[in-house]
């Protein structure tokens, strides 16, 4: 059974790049455009991992992580944030909120897959 990864990013190109790479590596993909959209989409679905951007309209990544960590189904699910070099404090905030790991943008498809593999097999 392929594992399902939820990708949350308001940038279409970023979402597509991540989605394309991970589909290629054999994962099922669910896409969401912001935190609120993501919360709607996880409902009733089995999600094995979440990859989320931090800066997004309506509900940002940090708040999404907080909410997911409170929900029964995703308390222990790996959550990886997409950060940039300049977002050190955001990264710390995300870690405190319960993020499992992070990938610094820009990254190569290989780097993405190797980070994902650190959390789901």
């Amino acid at each position: 059974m392929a594992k399902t990864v939820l990708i949350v990013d308001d940038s279409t190109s970023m979402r597509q790049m991540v989605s394309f790479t991970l589909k290629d590596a054999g994962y099922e993909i669910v896409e969401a455009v912001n935190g609120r959209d993501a919360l709607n989409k996880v409902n009733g679905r089995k999600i094995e991992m979440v990859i989320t951007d931090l800066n997004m309209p309506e509900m940002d990544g940090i708040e999404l992580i907080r909410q997911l960590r409170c929900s029964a189904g995703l308390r222990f699910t790996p959550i990886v944030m997409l950060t940039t070099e300049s977002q050190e404090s955001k990264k710390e905030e995300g870690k405190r909120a319960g993020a499992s790991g992070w990938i610094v943008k820009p990254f190569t498809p290989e780097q993405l897959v190797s980070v994902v593999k650190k959390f789901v097999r």
Partner: protein
Amino acid sequence: MDIEKLLRVFIDEAVERIGEIEDGLLEIEKSPQDMELINSIFRAAHTIKGSSGTFGLSDISRFTHCMEEILDLMRNGKLIPEKEIVNTLLEANDILKEMIETVASGGSFDFSRCEGLVSRMKSLAEKKELRQFKIIFIPSADLFRRGIEPTIIIEDLKNIGEIVDIQAYSDEVPTLSEFNPEELYLRWDILLRTDREESEIKEVFEFVEDGSKIKIFPVTDAEKDIPFLGQMLIKEGVVAPEDVDAALKTQKRLGEILVEEGKATSEEIERVIAKQRNSKQESFKKSITSTIRVDLGKLDHLVNIVGEMVIIHSMFQQFINSNGNREAEKLDLIFNQLQRIGKDIQESVMSLRMLPVGEVFHRFTRLVRELSETRNKEIELIITGEETELDKGVLEKITDPLVHLIRNAIDHGIEETEERIAKGKPARGRIHLSAFQLGDSVYIEVEDDGRGLDREKILRKALSAGLINSGEGLTDDQIFNLIFQPGFSTAEKVTDISGRGVGMDVVKKNIESLNGKIFIRTKPDAGTTISIKLPLTLAIIDGLTVGIGEEVFVIPISSVIESLRPERCNVKTLNEKGEVINVRDEYIPLLRLHEILDIPAMKIKPWEAIVVVTSHEDKKYGLLVDDLIGQQQVVIKNLGNAMPKVRDIAGGTILGDGRVALVLDVPGIIDIATKALMN
């Protein structure tokens, strides 16, 4: 035969060998485990190296030496013939062919061409050498809640090397009533064999670093200490020890031989020996002038002053926190920097009191040698982490307990030689004395590869000594910990080594007096490890500040388990036991601190006050206080000579708000209270 013809023979042979190397290298990719194949390639390269040297072709000889080194590592299993390595060797072999052809045609080969290749080969030989690392991984307890699965990390380690040994320790797993299924209580010791650098191993732990304790250190290969020829000959049974001694006596010193042969006069030899002695002394002086001796009193004074700086810092912090305005925010920023520098100063001053454990550790080499002789057991002592530093005070107090533990390991742990052989273990027993720092603690471990603790024997002994009424319901850990009970000794006959059962309880008491903890890990026939966890320093501790009446006291955090306000129905008075509180169905004696310290309290009823649950010698005691005030680092100062030694107070300190508070000595208080109860 003239030299031309000889050279011809060499060239023919070399060409043949080069062909063999090429065939072998192509074959090795398919069967990398074929030792005979690797050996034959190695021999071929070795032959070319040797004969080219003989013909004065030293550049070719040096070049083949580089190839030979890589092949040698492969031959010893220290280097895996990966594609990159095989390709490099093939490239080198092609160049070698060209070199030989140049020799054949009488031309000269441009050796600068292969400089890059040579340095690549050298780095392959250096970098890819397999090393062993010990990894201690104490994951943060909240790992599951951060969506991280620790076993995946261990899987990842397999991608960068071979896990030679892995052990999970469950000694921190609490009893079922205290067990939280969302917490991670395990820790792992992993032995990894890899050709990667330490930093690459560290990378595997990238996402778990926060809150986890991870220690990675290279393990030195015991086999590197190759014994002297004489020792080996004796071991192999070729000659008797007397023969070696006699032979060594006939051996002459270099100086004597030269004098006899008339190459030098004895005066000349003497003069040079004197010079050698001088330079030895010089180098010794050099090695010691990098240190300076300081009076301990001066050092303690400095520690005190820095301690006061720490206090001023907390005063400052409190002040800023209570004055919330815009200015305060700015001030907070500057203050944070000051605090960081302050912390640095504090740490480096504390480090002045630190001494490496090596000096104490090396004293044990002698002890082990002497004891193993009297007990007729062959035992070697391995020491690691000797550069680990401990507070001078702690170090002094740890020596006696360590003597005890090592004696125990020799006497009870390691089996007689015959027994070891019968079990299929190496005849020579091993004791591994190690030290390492993890976070704010230093661990010292005494590990033997002996028979392990005998669960049944301990149980029998504890029953007959009346330490327990029955073994039912006791976990293995609880049973093993019985050896720390006063009056316990499993030695069936008293020996001159490990004493008469006045052992482990004293060891444990000593460690606990240093705010340390002691753990046992043991496995039948695999050995026992006694692990001692010590605080880095005695002078600064984390304290819980509590209020009783008008007074403020500090309770060292290390002895606090939890604090709670009991329900009225959970406070009971039992016959002979005095007051107790029921905490999750466990009855804990209630000690009223205001009575013990003889001061008025504000809250007399436990259900209106706070109970701080502490532990002492594996038993829990509730200390009744009025209020919890907070938690802070405190610098303990002794009360000075004017005060007689008081059992219940460990020292004094100045709090963040400038008030003076006494630091409670929890074991002392429990002692006083239990004695009073008995009377």
